[in-house]
Structures are given as C-alpha cells and as structure tokens.
C-alpha cells in the first residue's frame, strides 16, 4: 500500500495539470460571462467533492452509531436497504419538480445501501470513526473553497460578492458551519462520548446537503441551476472539461483523505501510548507505596 501512494500522487498531479490545461485553454469561452466563467471548473468540482465526502461521513457516522448496539446494528442494515429500494422506486413514482431527473435521485438514494455495506466491510469498528473525521475535515476544506470561489465569481458576474438571504449561499454557509462545529467538538471535547456525539451531529449536518442541492428548485435564488441532475444546460465541450476537472479533484481528495486517515491512526497510536505510559507510571507508584502501607499496618 505504501508503494501505491507515490504512484497515485504522480497520477493525480498529471491529472490536475491536464484538468488545468483543459479548463484554461481547451474549454470554449462563455458567450455571456467571458473567461471568468472558467471558475466553474474549480467551484463546481469542489462542491461535488465536498458533498460526496459529507455523504461518506454521514454513512460512516450512522454505521458507527448503529454498530454500538447489536440490536441496532442488524436493524440499520435492513433500514439502509429499505431506504435505497423505496427511495429509488419513489423517485420514479412521485412527481418531482420540473428539472429534477428521477434517475439522479434514484442513483443517489441507491448509493446509501451500497456505501453502507462497503464501509461496513472495509472500515470495521473504530475505523468507521477514523473515516468519519477524515471525510469531515477534508470535506470542510473543499467546502471552504466553494465558499471562497463563489463570491470571487459572483463579483464580476452579479456585481456583488454575496447575495444576503439567498438560500443556496446561506445553506452552504450553514453546512460549512455545522461541519466546522463537528471538528471543534472533536478537537476540544475530552468526554468518552465525544465520538458518538460527533456522529449524531454529523447525521443532522448531512441533512443540510440535500437542502443545499435542491434549494434551487424550491426557493428563488440567484444561483444558476445545477448542470447535473437537471435544470441547467451546458455546452457538451464545457461539460467534458467539467468532468475531467472533477475526476482530477476526486483523485486529489482521495489522496488527501488517505494522508489524513493515516494521520488519525497515528494520532490514536500516540494517544494510546501516552495512556499506557501514564498507566504504567501509576502502577509503579502503587507498587512503591504498597510496602509503606503494609509496614504501617504492621506497626
């Protein structure tokens, strides 16, 4: 596995360079916005990557909570399957607002049981919690990029940095704040229940993701319609470049998550070593003080 990291790093660097070339040189210029629209090739893939990471965080957190009790562990598996199947069928049966593609909803909902079983298989026990903190932190980084590049794009196009009260922008900011609070909770809480509390917070935080994505259909907003899932349209050449850019960002996110995951494992090792050391120190103190106690008793 250690050998795979540098190879993956080289592939990612090549992909990112290729995506940059595609975004700045190959992609056609937008007739209305000119070249500034090219911010889309960083803004949108960052948003999709953040959503995907928060989704993984959600599944890992639910599974971590469910696995803490044998009864809920079994029930959660069936609930995950039921949510996937019922949600996918409902996407085609229930009439959706114009612009939302049922196939996009069905795919997303079906991903819940798929990810649930995959994470359960490859990240058992405490590894789920390690994965949850990893995806939350890297997700916050990508979400930060979305919140920074958005206003930089809005200024020349809308004439303002931020549209106060706009549901898309506000819900994205709330999403960022929820996950920042999740990280603060994990960083500063010493309670033994921190991991479970954080997992519960992550479950509620993840509920904001669909609100961010679908807010465009349900509320008036200045933000344009999404190009994937319905509503918005895009030149096929531009869409190709967007997909290349997202692929490069996914590779990069995977690499960063891998590094953060290893860091978290190491942090827990150090924490455990500290605990063992202080425990052995306490044992030796008890061993030293014991003869005194017995001698006092004999006096």
């Amino acid at each position, binding site marked *: 596995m250690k050998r795979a990291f540098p190879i993956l790093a080289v592939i990612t660097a090549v992909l990112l360079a290729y995506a940059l070339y595609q975004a700045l040189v190959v992609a056609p210029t937008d007739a209305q916005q000119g070249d500034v629209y090219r*911010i889309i090739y*960083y803004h949108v893939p960052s948003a999709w990557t953040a959503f995907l990471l928060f989704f993984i965080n959600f599944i890992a957190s639910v599974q971590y909570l469910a696995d803490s009790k044998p009864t809920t562990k079994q029930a959660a598996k069936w609930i995950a399957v039921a949510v996937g199947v019922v949600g996918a069928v409902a996407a085609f049966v229930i009439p959706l607002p114009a612009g939302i593609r049922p196939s996009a909803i069905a795919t997303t909902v079906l991903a819940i049981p798929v990810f649930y079983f995959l994470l359960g298989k490859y990240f058992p026990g405490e590894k789920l919690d390690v994965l949850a903190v990893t995806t939350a932190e890297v997700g916050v980084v990508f979400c930060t990029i979305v919140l920074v590049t958005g206003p930089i794009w809005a200024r020349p196009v809308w004439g303002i940095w931020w549209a106060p009260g706009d549901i898309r922008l506000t819900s994205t900011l709330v999403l960022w704040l929820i996950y920042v609070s999740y990280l603060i909770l994990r960083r500063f809480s010493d309670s033994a229940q921190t991991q479970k509390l954080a997992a519960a917070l992550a479950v509620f935080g993840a509920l904001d993701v669909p609100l961010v994505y679908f807010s465009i259909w349900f509320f008036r907003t200045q933000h344009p319609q999404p190009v994937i899932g319905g509503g918005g349209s895009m030149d096929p050449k531009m869409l190709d470049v967007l997909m290349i850019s997202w692929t490069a960002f996914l590779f990069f996110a995977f690499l960063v998550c891998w590094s953060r995951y290893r860091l978290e494992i190491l942090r827990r090792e150090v924490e455990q070593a500290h605990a063992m050391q202080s425990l052995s120190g306490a044992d030796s103190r008890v061993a030293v003080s014991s003869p005194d106690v017995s001698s006092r008793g004999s006096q």
Partner: protein
Amino acid sequence: MNAIKFLYAAYIVTWLIHALYIGSLVRRYKSLRQQLKELNKGK
C-alpha cells in the same frame, strides 16, 4: 470588464487553501512522529 483577475484569484486561492491544509497535515504528522519517538525512548 477586467474579469480575468477574478479567474486567476479563484484558482490561486483554491491552491493556497489546499497548500495550507497539506502543510498543516505535514506539520501534525511530524509532531506526532516526534512524540511517538520520545514515548518509545522513555520505555
């Protein structure tokens, strides 16, 4: 409209954020390695 500077600003800021985060990961990793080394020495 001199919008091109906004495009460059967005791209630069993106990589600046990533660089800062990767830098923080490297710093934390080095610090933990050092702590682990000291703990092993103390055994």
